[in-house]
């Protein structure tokens, strides 16, 4: 017995190391566990409160830069408002001619960004709204400039949004000009890639990329960005399309959460089909 105790004491560093490794691996595999989610939700609330308290400290450089950007944006938006007014009048006229019903707008919830975690591969923002405001996982986050990301975790008063520039982010997208569909994936830098577009399809630099109707998370026709590079790799069937996001993620201060509940019937049906194929 004493010998056994001596062996344990002799190798205690290795034993503790092995135990902690096993415990870490168990934690990694339990991220979907209800208890882990509850702990996560609690810590998000706690960290959110701290970040919220610190958000009152103004950053002079950020304010100056934001002011300049907002002035520029204001000029652009004024111009766009005029054009949209014209387009809306024309749209109303055409809809009434076709007998189409006016599509209802989404309910938007304004949220302040109280924390940013830009950890290169895992870029998230902390928002000052949570479950009490109706925020749920997978709700889309947008700004006046376009798609920002989606909600990945919530607590009662705070939520965490995954930015488009994250390795797990995917969104169904289409080219506005010719309605070609693809999938938006982050390319590790400050841009995203539009994948699954075969070489035979035509994509031009400057084409606008929007969310498509195929997504069960994002509403259609939200601007994602603009195509800035199209290339073809020998041996690949697909084009390599790089898209510059329309949102400047470093400048984001306020966003909107689209309060839209996922169509569970559709999601369940799609999941069922995937399981059947497996």
């Amino acid at each position, binding site marked *: 017995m004493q010998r056994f105790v001596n062996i344990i004491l002799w190798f205690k560093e290795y034993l503790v190391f092995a135990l902690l490794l096993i415990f870490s691996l168990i*934690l*990694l595999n339990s991220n979907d566990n209800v208890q882990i989610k509850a702990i*996560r939700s609690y810590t*998000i609330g706690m960290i959110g409160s701290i970040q919220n308290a610190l958000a009152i400290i103004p950053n002079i450089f950020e304010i100056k830069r934001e002011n300049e950007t907002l002035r520029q944006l204001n000029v652009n938006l004024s111009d766009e408002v005029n054009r949209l007014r014209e387009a809306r009048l024309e749209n109303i006229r055409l809809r009434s001619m076709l007998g189409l019903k006016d599509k209802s707008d989404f309910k938007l919830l304004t949220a302040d960004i109280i924390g940013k975690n830009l950890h290169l591969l895992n870029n998230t923002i902390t928002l000052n709204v949570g479950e009490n405001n109706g925020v749920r996982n997978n709700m889309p986050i947008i700004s006046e400039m376009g798609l920002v990301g989606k909600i990945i975790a919530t607590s009662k008063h705070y939520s965490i949004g995954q930015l488009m520039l994250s390795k797990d982010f995917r969104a169904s997208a289409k080219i506005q000009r010719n309605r070609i569909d693809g999938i938006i994936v982050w390319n*590790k830098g400050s841009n995203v890639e539009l994948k699954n577009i075969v070489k035979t399809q035509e994509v031009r630099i400057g084409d606008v990329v929007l969310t498509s109707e195929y997504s069960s998370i994002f509403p259609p026709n939200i601007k994602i960005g603009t195509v800035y590079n199209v290339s073809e790799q020998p041996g690949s069937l697909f084009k390599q399309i790089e898209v510059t996001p329309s949102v400047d993620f470093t400048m984001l201060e306020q966003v909107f959460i689209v309060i839209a509940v996922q169509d569970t019937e559709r999601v369940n049906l799609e999941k069922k089909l995937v399981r059947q194929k497996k």
Partner: protein
Amino acid sequence: MMKHIKYLFLTFIFIFIQSQIIQLISLEGITPDILIIWIAYIAVKNGQLYATVWGFIIGLIFDLSIGSFIGISALSKTVAGFTAGYFFRDNKSVILLTSYRFLIIVLISSLISNTIYFLIFTRGSEIDLLHVIFLIGFTTSIYTTAFSILLMFSFSRRYSKLHV
């Protein structure tokens, strides 16, 4: 006991700096990992067992604070602590902290920690692991080591004053 409370308090401060303030000194998006430096310091001062356990605690609190996958930093920082603990020598912590050896400890721990982190993080994604390890992991380790030079000099000053 007081030492543990002090370490826990400092851990919270360092995690806050790492997640909220360190971005101000980022170079092309690369930031130094001050938690690795903190783990290396614990290892040099207290040994392998302490460093392994504190590596796990620091990693776990960090995972919880940034809303990331829980367990990923806990795992990588546990290994970092275990690795840094190999360099522990009884009654030689001052020599280690005030010499280039501290930088080597930080560099090796950081490289191993980042490799493990990205090995798990990129699993199942289309991101090229080697590319990420070299582009982010290696540069982060170099920046962390460069950052720890400041600490090495400050330790050196502090201990030389104590001996005068």
